[in-house]
């Protein structure tokens, strides 16, 4: 007979720990199963120089605000790990336990793990949205390749130039760091989200937060599917980085990597348009902030400077570059989830964190319940709501009308 517990939370990142916080406050008996240590992703899947792109004052978890000396600073990885570790105090976490399978049973679920089986009535999936780096398949390329999970520091790469593919937060940060280390860097730019670090003297994320943009609910977002796929903003913790600062530093911009043919990387000729789209969108965002603040004049960003003749081809065998860094996004891993809740593209189907399978919940996915859902400060509302729903169901007062109400 498997051991029993009411609720199993998969993953001890800040999302799983926030779930535990609310489960504890409702005295719902639960365990948090974590394959590594608390804050495992921050410990094992990030590069050395990474800092949060959200300022310290936004590092808020349920019952735990930032209380250090530098509210406008940006945490290093060591600081994030410490912050999350502190938040885990009192949570029933079992570390070093890998969840290998979750399946449905009559009463709820059976959770099989590296430490044995557990029977439970509900499961909260908090295993993260970024478990696997996405790497497009262009076949054999003959150069060294790394993902953001393997990348640690410029010194760890073989000598030579680097092609960084992807210009979202990760790609622009790594391109800047590699260029600063003295390397030749080519940055392949597809659709991206431009965001200036500051607007009218304040951190742009202050505007996102205060204007209410980030608090927008998932059921009020016009094109939710699109919002959930939005690339991360071109921001770095502290430093100003966008395509213009990269160009000024000597990074060569090219279009989206479209194909590899006869040993050459071929880039899209649509670079100018993806930059125009991002510029227009960034200016619209800033105008929206100003409108909210009742300011009538407008700040217009310097347009992205696109090279006059962006290169369309890079011979990967010429020795110009020795390494490709794939900054092409991440996806969750649900290979252990044996419950039919994935859509045809492998994404979890849910309505604000509530899946169609009674008792199965998710946290930490993009725009789960609000635009800010995947950020540290976005978890509180989401976790409270999901645990409220879970508790209502357990108490038996749950009826179908609740599950259908948004």
């Amino acid at each position, binding site marked *: 007979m498997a051991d029993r517990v009411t609720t199993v939370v998969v993953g001890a990142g800040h999302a799983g720990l926030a779930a535990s916080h609310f489960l504890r406050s409702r005295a719902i008996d639960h365990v948090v199963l974590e394959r590594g240590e608390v804050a495992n992703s921050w410990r094992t899947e990030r590069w050395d120089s990474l800092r949060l792109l959200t300022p310290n004052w936004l590092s808020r978890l349920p019952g735990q605000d930032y209380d250090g000396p530098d509210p406008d600073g940006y945490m290093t990885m060591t600081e994030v790990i410490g912050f999350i570790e502190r938040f885990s105090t009192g949570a029933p976490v079992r570390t070093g336990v890998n969840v290998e399978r979750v399946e449905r049973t009559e009463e709820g679920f059976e959770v099989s793990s590296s430490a044995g089986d557990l029977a439970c009535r509900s499961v909260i999936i908090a295993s993260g949205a970024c478990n696997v780096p996405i790497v497009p398949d262009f076949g054999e390329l003959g150069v060294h390749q790394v993902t953001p999970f393997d990348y640690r520091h410029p010194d760890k790469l073989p000598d030579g130039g680097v092609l960084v593919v992807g210009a979202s937060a990760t790609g622009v940060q790594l391109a800047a760091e590699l260029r600063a280390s003295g390397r030749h860097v080519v940055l392949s730019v597809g*659709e991206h989200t431009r965001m200036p670090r500051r607007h009218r003297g304040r951190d742009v994320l202050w505007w996102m937060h205060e204007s209410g943009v980030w608090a927008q609910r998932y059921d009020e977002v016009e094109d939710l599917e699109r919002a959930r796929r939005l690339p991360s903003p071109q921001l770095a913790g502290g430093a100003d980085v966008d395509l213009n600062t990269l160009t000024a530093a000597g990074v060569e911009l090219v*279009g*989206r990597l*479209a*194909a590899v*043919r006869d040993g050459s990387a*071929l880039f*899209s*000729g*649509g670079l100018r*348009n993806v930059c*125009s*789209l991002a510029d*227009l969108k960034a*200016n*619209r965002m800033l105008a929206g902030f100003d409108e909210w603040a009742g300011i009538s004049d407008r700040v217009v960003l310097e347009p992205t400077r696109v090279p006059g*003749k962006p290169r369309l081809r890079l011979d990967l065998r010429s020795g110009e570059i020795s390494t490709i860094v794939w900054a092409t996004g991440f996806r969750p891993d649900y290979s252990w989830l044996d419950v039919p809740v994935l859509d045809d593209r492998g994404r979890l189907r849910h309505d604000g964190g509530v899946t169609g399978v009674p008792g199965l919940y998710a946290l930490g996915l993009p725009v789960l319940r609000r635009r800010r859902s995947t950020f540290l400060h976005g978890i509180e509302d989401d976790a409270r709501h999901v645990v409220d729903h879970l508790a209502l169901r357990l108490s038996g007062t749950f009826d179908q009308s609740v599950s259908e109400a948004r």
Partner: protein
Amino acid sequence: MTTTDNGVNVQALLDAREALKGAPEAAQFTWRATSKWDKGVHSTTTIKNFYGLGAEQSHKSETVFAADHPEVFAAEDNGITPIEYLLVGLASCLTAGVASVAQNRGIQLNSVTATVEGNHDIRGILGDADVRNGYNDIKVTFNIDADASPEDIEALVAQSQKRSAVFDALTNPTDVTVEVA
């Protein structure tokens, strides 16, 4: 509020997008053209049928396109140059995109003109191995009169590129197979 009418049935397009979510097979289209050599560098291409929505389809009528080369190429100029057909495709695709996006965004268009210029170094096709055969670059200039701000018009044009089949086909490589049957 007046209703926008650019003559694009956006609702039908949005409905199609919804319907195809559940039926990706139906979204697979094959476009076809048949070309016959006439004489010299003159050929005639006809287009009538295509495949899509899981079945053979046809246009209301067959269209015939003559392709030739101008007299400065020592040809008879019975029709436009093949590479000019790419400009026809690009301009009409982007223009259709502008109209559709405008309709979707509630922007009334009064007039839309696109001028397309493709710069071509013909030494490539004449055998100079250092020069590319195709266009070196293409420039499209839109003149749009619409009931919208300059920023909104810019956004229309940007979005139409983002959704354009021909813009994609020209800016990204496509695998092409040519066989002798």
